[in-house]
C-alpha cells in the first residue's frame, strides 16, 4: 500500500514538472527607474501570466532590474528585491500575486520552485514539530519532507542554522549526546546537556541522520530555508538485545572535538561480567584504555597516570568522594538509577575543574513520565530494587532505587566463630525527581546516600558514608541561550570505633562537607560559534579527625584536629568555533581562585629547611572568615579537530588544571580511612598540564571504530609522602608530605565494534607514570632524586571485552585483561645498627608484583520478549577469574623467629561462579 502511494506521488510529480517546463516562458527586460506597471506589462506580455497587485501599494515604486532569459521567478525575485513586496506564482491558474507584507501561498507543487533540488515523490508539509502524537509512527518520517525556516521561493545560497531538541519519544526524557549529521557536506553536532543541538548547514535539501545510544537511528528529509528549529523524538530500540555493547556515538568518535572522552551507556556496562554478577560502573571503566587500578579490591581508579584523588566523580554535579562499597569490591553507584557515564581523560570541558586527571560524569536516569515501572535484581550477596513513574503525568517523574547486602544473616549461619563475629554490610539509596515547569523550564533533583559498615573479627567497627543532593534548574531563555543553575551538597565521613579493650576504647572520625553552586550557560552566538560560560563556587569544610574515648572506662586522651575550610570558585568561557566544515576548535579558559579560610592555626616553617618538627617556627591563629591565603590561576582547555575525510580525523588538545584538595594516602591500596587535605600556606595546589594527539578512523560506516591517542602530562606539586609518614590524626601533616614533580606519558589504542552479533572492544595501553623529588631543601630525596615509578605505574595493559549474541535471548560475554604488575618497594635485607635490627629497603617502587591476568565469562539468558507480558526476567550466570590465577593484590613481610618472610595476598585467587536474577515489571 505504501509503495503504491509512493509511486502515485512520483508519477504525479513527474507529470507536473513536465507540464511546468512547457508552460514557462523566459523573461527578458531592461528596466531603469520604471514604474511597477511597466514590469507588470512585461510579465503579462512575455509569459502570459496574469499579475494581481494592489495599485495603492505599488504606484509609488520605481523598478530597476535587468534580466535576460530569466525564469519568471528569478526575474520577480530580482525586481522586487528590497521593495518590501512578496510574490506568489500559481502555475495552474497562470497568475502572479504581488502583495505587501503578507505572502500568499497558492499551494502548488514544490518542485516548480526548485526543480533541481527537488526529489520526485516527496510529500510536502510545513512541519516544525512533529513530536507530539506522531512520534511512534517512525516510518512516516522517512518519506516526509520537513521544511524549516521562513519559506522562500528560491533558496538563496548561504548557510542557515538548524537547532532543536531531541527527546525520547516514549518517556519524554531529553537525550544527551545524540548526534545529528548530514553527509554532504559532512557536518554534525551532538546534543548538549539539555538535549539541544545546533547545526549550521547550507540552505537547501538535506538528509539529516539522527543517532543516539540505545535509540533507533532516524533519517529526516529536510529543506532548510533559513534559521529554524526541528525537535525530534527518538524511539527506544524495541528489542534490547539488539543494543550494541558500547554505544559511544559512532560518528561522534571522529567528529567531536573533545579527545579522550569515553562514554558508556548503562546497557553496555551491563554486558561486562563482573564479580558476583553485580553491574559495576567503575569496574567497566577500568576496561577502557588509560584507566587503571592498583588492585582488584581497591577504591578508585587512576586515569592516565593520575592518582586516585585526581578524578572528579560527579553524580549530577555533586562530588562523590568514595565511589566504592566494601573496600572496593562493589562500586557505590547503583546501575539501575543511572543513564550512563562519561569519562573525560584529556579534553576536560572548561566548566569542570578542581581535579587534575579526569572528570567522571555519572548521569542520573530520570523516571518514566508515562507509566509506573519497576525492576528488581537478586544476587547472591546483594539485591536491588527500583521503582519509577510519573507523579504528574508527562511533567513530573520519580525514580527510587536501593541496594543492600544481606550477607550478615548468612554469616550467622556459618559454624565458625570468626565468621559469626564478623560482618560487612552496605546499602545505598537514590531518589531522582524531575519536573517540567513548562517547555522552557525544568527542575531536576537527585539525592544519594550510601553507607558501609564492617566489623572485622574483633570489636572494631569501620564505617563510612556518602551523602549528596543536587537541585538544578534548566531554563531555555531563547533558542540561542540556555542556562542551568544548580546547587548541591556532598558529605563524606568515616569512623572507626574500637571497643575491644574498654580502657583503650576509642572512636576515630573524619568528615568532609562540600557545598557547590554553579550557573552555566550555553549561547549559540552564530553559525560558527557556540559559547559556554558560567561560574561556580565550592565551599569546603573538613573535620580532619577526632580521636575520642569511648565509654566511661576509656583512658584515651581526646584529640581533635582543628577543622579547616576553604572557598574555591571559578569563571569559565568556552567557545566551540567551527573554522571550516573540517576544522573545529574548542577554546576554553577557566580561571580558578582558592581561598583558605579561618578560623585555623597555621604552623610556619623555617624557609630553606625541610618541613619537619625541627623546622617549625611559629603557629599563627587566624580568625573566622579571614582569608589565610589565596591561590589562583588560569586553566587552558584547548582542542582542535581536523577532518581528513568523513571517517578519519586528527585531534589535538592542550589542557591545564589545578587541584586544591588532596587525598592523603601513603598506603598502596586506598583504604577508607584515607584523609583529605585542603591546600594551605604549606601545601601548594597541584598543577597539571597535558598535551595529547589522536587519530580516529571509522570503518564500515562507523560499526568499527579505531582510535590511537598519545599524551604527555606534567604534574607539579604532586603529593608524595616521606617515609614513615603518619597521616591520621596528625597536627602538622604538611611535615609528612612532599611536593614532587610528576610526568606521565603513554599511548592508547582501541578497536571497537559496536554492533552486530559479535561486538566488544580491544584496548591496549602503554603508559608510564614517573615521579621525582630532587629538592633537598624540601625534604629527603627519594631514590637519590631520580625519576621513580608511581604506585600505579603499569606500563602494559591489554583488555578485551567481547560479546556474542547467539539468539535474541541468549548471549555470552567475555572479559580478558592483562597488565604489568604494579611497583612495590621491597625489603631486601636487614642489618644491625644503633642497637637494633633494621630492615633494608630497595629503592622506592623499584620492584614489581607479578603480572596480572584474568578472564571472566558470563551468560545472559533472557525470558521471552512478549511485550504484553507483565514481568520480564533474565538470568546472568558466570564465572569470575575463569583461569583461577592467583593474582597478587599485595605483598607483606612479617618477622617469624628472627627471619623475615614474605607473603603475597590474592583477593580473588580462585574461580568464582556467580548467578543473578533480574526482573522488570
Amino acid at each position, binding site marked *: 500500500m505504501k509503495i503504491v502511494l509512493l509511486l502515485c506521488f512520483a508519477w504525479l510529480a513527474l507529470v507536473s514538472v513536465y507540464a511546468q517546463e512547457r508552460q514557462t516562458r523566459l523573461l527578458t527586460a531592461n528596466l531603469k527607474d520604471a514604474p511597477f506597471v511597466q514590469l507588470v506589462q512585461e510579465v503579462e506580455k512575455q509569459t502570459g501570466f496574469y499579475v494581481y497587485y494592489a495599485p495603492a501599494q505599488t504606484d509609488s515604486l520605481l523598478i530597476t532590474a535587468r534580466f535576460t532569459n530569466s525564469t519568471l521567478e528569478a526575474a520577480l525575485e530580482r525586481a522586487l528585491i528590497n521593495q518590501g513586496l512578496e510574490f506568489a506564482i500559481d502555475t495552474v491558474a497562470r497568475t502572479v500575486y504581488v502583495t505587501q507584507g503578507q505572502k500568499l501561498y497558492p499551494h502548488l507543487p514544490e518542485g516548480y520552485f526548485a526543480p533541481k533540488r527537488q526529489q520526485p515523490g516527496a510529500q510536502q508539509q510545513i512541519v516544525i514539530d512533529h513530536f507530539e502524537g506522531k512520534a511512534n509512527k517512525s516510518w512516516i518520517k522517512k518519506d516526509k519532507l520537513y521544511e524549516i525556516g521562513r519559506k522562500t521561493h528560491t533558496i538563496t545560497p548561504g548557510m542557515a542554522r538548524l537547532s532543536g531538541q531531541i527527546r525520547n519519544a516514549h518517556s519524554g526524557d531529553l537525550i544527551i549526546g545524540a548526534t545529528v549529521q548530514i553527509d554532504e557536506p559532512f557536518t554534525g553536532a551532538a546534543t548538549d546537556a539539555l538535549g539541544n543541538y545546533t547545526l549550521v548547514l547550507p540552505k537547501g535539501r538535506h538528509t539529516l541522520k539522527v543517532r543516539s545510544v540505545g535509540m533507533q537511528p532516524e533519517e529526516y528529509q529536510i529543506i532548510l530555508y533559513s534559521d529554524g528549529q526541528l525537535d525530534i523524538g527518538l524511539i527506544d530500540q524495541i528489542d534490547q538485545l539488539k543494543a550494541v555493547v558500547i554505544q559511544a556515538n559512532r560518528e561522534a568518535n571522529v567528529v567531536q572535538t573533545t579527545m579522550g572522552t569515553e562514554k558508556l551507556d548503562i546497557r553496555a556496562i551491563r554486558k561486562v561480567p563482573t564479580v558476583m554478577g553485580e553491574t559495576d560502573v567503575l569496574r567497566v571503566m577500568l576496561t577502557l584504555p588509560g584507566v587503571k587500578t592498583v588492585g582488584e579490591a581497591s577504591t578508585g581508579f587512576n586515569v592516565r597516570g593520575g592518582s586516585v584523588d585526581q578524578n572528579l566523580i560527579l553524580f549530577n554535579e555533586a562530588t562523590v568522594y568514595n565511589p566504592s562499597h566494601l573496600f572496593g569490591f562493589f562500586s557505590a553507584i547503583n546501575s539501575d538509577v543511572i543513564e550512563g557515564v562519561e569519562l573525560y581523560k584529556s579534553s576536560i570541558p572548561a566548566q569542570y575543574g578542581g581535579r587534575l586527571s579526569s572528570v567522571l560524569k555519572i548521569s542520573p536516569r530520570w523516571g518514566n513520565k508515562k507509566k509506573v515501572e519497576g525492576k528488581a535484581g537478586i544476587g*547472591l*550477596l546483594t539485591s536491588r530494587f527500583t521503582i519509577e513513574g510519573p507523579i504528574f503525568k508527562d511533567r513530573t517523574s520519580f525514580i527510587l532505587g536501593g541496594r543492600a547486602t544481606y*550477607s550478615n544473616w*548468612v*554469616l550467622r*549461619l*556459618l559454624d565458625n566463630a570468626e*565468621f559469626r563475629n564478623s560482618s560487612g554490610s552496605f546499602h545505598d539509596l537514590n531518589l531522582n525527581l524531575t519536573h517540567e515547569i513548562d517547555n522552557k523550564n525544568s527542575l531536576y533533583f537527585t539525592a544519594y546516600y550510601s553507607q558501609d559498615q564492617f566489623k572485622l573479627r574483633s570489636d572494631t567497627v569501620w564505617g563510612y558514608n556518602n551523602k549528596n543532593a543536587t537541585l538544578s534548574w534548566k531554563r531555555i531563555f531563547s533558542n540561542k541561550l540556555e542556562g542551568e543553575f544548580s546547587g548541591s551538597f556532598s558529605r563524606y565521613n568515616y569512623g572507626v570505633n574500637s571497643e575491644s579493650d574498654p580502657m583503650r576504647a576509642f572512636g576515630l572520625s573524619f568528615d568532609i562537607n562540600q557545598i557547590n553552586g554553579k550557573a552555566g550557560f550555553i549561547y549559540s552566538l552564530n553559525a560558527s560559534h557556540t559559547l559556554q560560560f558560567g561560574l561556580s563556587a565550592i565551599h569546603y569544610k573538613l573535620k580532619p579527625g577526632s580521636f575520642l574515648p569511648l565509654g566511661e572506662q576509656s583512658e584515651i586522651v581526646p584529640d581533635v584536629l582543628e577543622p579547616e575550610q576553604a572557598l574555591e570558585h571559578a569563571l569559565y568561557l568556552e567557545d566551540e568555533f567551527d573554522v571550516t566544515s573540517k576544522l573545529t576548535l574548542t577554546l576554553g579558559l577557566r580561571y580558578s581562585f582558592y581561598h583558605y579560610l579561618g578560623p585555623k592555626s597555621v604552623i610556619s*616553617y*623555617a624557609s630553606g*629547611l625541610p618541613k*619537619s618538627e*625541627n*623546622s*617549625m*617556627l611559629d603557629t599563627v591563629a587566624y580568625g573566622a572568615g579571614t582569608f589565610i591565603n589565596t591561590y589562583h590561576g588560569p586553566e587552558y582547555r584547548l582542542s582542535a579537530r581536523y577532518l581528513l575525510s568523513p571517517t578519519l580525523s586528527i585531534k589535538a588538545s592542550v589542557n591545564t588544571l589545578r587541584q586544591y584538595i588532596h587525598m592523603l594516602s601513603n*598506603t*598502596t591500596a586506598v*583504604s577508607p580511612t584515607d584523609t583529605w587535605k585542603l591546600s594551605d600556606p604549606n601545601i601548594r595546589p597541584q598543577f597539571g598540564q597535558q598535551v595529547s594527539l589522536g587519530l580516529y578512523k571509522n570503518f564500515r560506516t562507523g560499526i568499527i571504530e579505531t582510535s590511537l591517542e598519545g599524551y604527555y602530562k606534567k604534574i607539579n606539586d604532586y603529593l608524595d*609522602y616521606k*617515609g*614513615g*609518614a603518619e597521616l591520621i590524626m596528625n597536627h602538622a601533616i604538611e611535615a609528612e608530605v612532599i611536593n614532587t614533580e610528576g610526568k606521565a606519558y603513554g599511548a592508547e589504542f582501541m578497536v571497537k565494534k559496536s554492533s552486530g552479533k559479535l561486538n566488544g572492544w580491544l584496548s591496549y595501553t602503554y603508559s608510564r607514570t614517573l615521579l621525582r623529588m630532587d629538592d633537598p631543601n624540601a625534604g*629527603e*630525596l627519594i631514590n637519590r632524586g631520580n625519576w621513580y615509578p608511581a604506585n600505579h605505574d603499569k606500563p602494559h595493559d591489554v583488555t578485551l571485552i567481547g560479546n556474542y549474541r547467539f539468539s535474541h535471548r541468549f548471549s555470552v560475554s567475555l572479559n580478558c585483561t592483562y597488565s604489568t604488575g604494579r611497583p612495590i*618497594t*621491597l*625489603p*631486601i*635485607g*636487614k*642489618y644491625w*645498627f*644503633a642497637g*637494633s635490627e*633494621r*630492615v*633494608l*629497603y630497595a629503592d*622506592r617502587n623499584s620492584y614489581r608484583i607479578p603480572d596480572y591476568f584474568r578472564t571472566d565469562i558470563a551468560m545472559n539468558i533472557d525470558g521471552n520478549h512478549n511485550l504484553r507480558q507483565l514481568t520480564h526476567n533474565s538470568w546472568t550466570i558466570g564465572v569470575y577469574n575463569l583461569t583461577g590465577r*592467583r593474582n597478587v593484590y*599485595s*605483598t*607483606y*613481610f*612479617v618477622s617469624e*623467629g*628472627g*627471619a623475615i*618472610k*614474605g*607473603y*603475597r*595476598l*590474592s583477593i*580473588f*585467587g*580462585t574461580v568464582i561462579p*556467580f*548467578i543473578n536474577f533480574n526482573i522488570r515489571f
Partner: protein
Amino acid sequence: MKKWRYALLLMLLAFGVWSCVDPYEPNIITEARNYLVVEGSLSSGSPSLLRLSRTVGLADANAFVPERFAQVSIESEGGQVVYLTGDTNGSYTLPELDLNPQHRYRLRIQTITTGEYLSDYVTLIPTPPIDSITWIQNELGVQLFVNTHDPLDNTRYYYWEYEETWEVRAPYRAEFEYVEGIIVNREPIPPQKCWKQENSSEVIIGSSARLQRDVIQRQPLVFIPRTSWKLDQRYSILVKQHALSREAFEYFQQLKKNTEETGSFFDPLPVELRGNIYAVSNAEEPVIGFFSMGTVQEQRLYIGIAEIPRWGFRRACNITMVTPDSAYFYFGGGLQPLYRDDEGNFYGTNNTDCYDCSAKADPVKPDFWE
C-alpha cells in the same frame, strides 16, 4: 527454599575461600644482600669506635655479620693517615687522638671481599657539653631527658647514645642446696648483688634548627615503665652527646623512620637511605651509615630508689615453708631451699631471681659505680 539457602551458603563459603595467602619470595629477597654497614663516629679527644658489619638476607636468623679483616683508616686532606685496629667482632678502634679542627678528614675502608670504600670529607664538629640530665616521675614511670645548649648557637643538630646500668638485688640468701635427696650447705652462696647494663637501641636525635638560640631542653632519652626492674635499687645512665652536621642529622632521621618494623600493605612507605660513604668501584652500591667526626660529651646520672616513691616493680618471691619430713616432696619437685628457721623448717622458692642475681645480670661491680 532449602536448595536456595544451600546455594547461598556455598557461595558465601566461596567468599571466604576466595582470598588466599601464598609465600612470596621474589629472587631479590632470597638473594643474600651483602652491603657494608658502618656505625660509629670518629672522636677527637677520646677513643673512637667504628663497627663494620654486613647486611644479611631477610630470612637469615643471624642479623649481625661483622666485617672482619678490613683495613680502616682516616685520611686528612693534608695527607695524614691514621689506621684503626680491628677485632673479630667487626669493631675498629682508635685510641684517644687529637684531630686538627682545621682539617677535613675522610674514612677509607679496604675490605677483603667487596673492594674499597671512601667517605666524603667531613669537618670536625665540636660538641658542647651536656647541661644536665633530668627526669620526672609520673604515674606511668620515669622519663629521662637531656638538656644542652651551645652558647655560640652553632651546633644545632645532636645525636645521643646512652648506657644504662642498674643494680639488681636478689632478696634472699640461699644458704642451702638440695642435692640427691639431702639438704646441704650451698657453696658458694649465689651473688645477691649484680649490675645489669644495656645500651640504647634507638636513634635519638634532636635539633634546635627552628629555635632562635641553640638550646635543647628536655629531649626525651628513655622512659622507664613503672614496673621495670631498672629502678628496683639504684639506676645510672651515661649519656653521650655528639654534634652532627645537618646532612648527618637528616640521614639518622631517615634511618629512624625505617625502624625494625617490616612492611605490611597498610604500612607507610620506607625511606631511601643514602649516606656519605661510597664504594669506590660502584657509586650505586648502597652503603649504610654516615661518617661523621666530632668530640663527645658525656654525663652520668644516678637515681636511687629513695628518690622514686611508689615504684611498681615487685619481684615475685613466694616463699614456701617446708617441714623437714616434706623436703623430698618439695625440694625434689624443684623448689630451692633458702634458709632454715629455729624449728628446723626450711624455706624455699621457685624463682631463681630471688636468691641469685647472676642469672640475669653481672655480679662484677662496674668500675665507675659509686
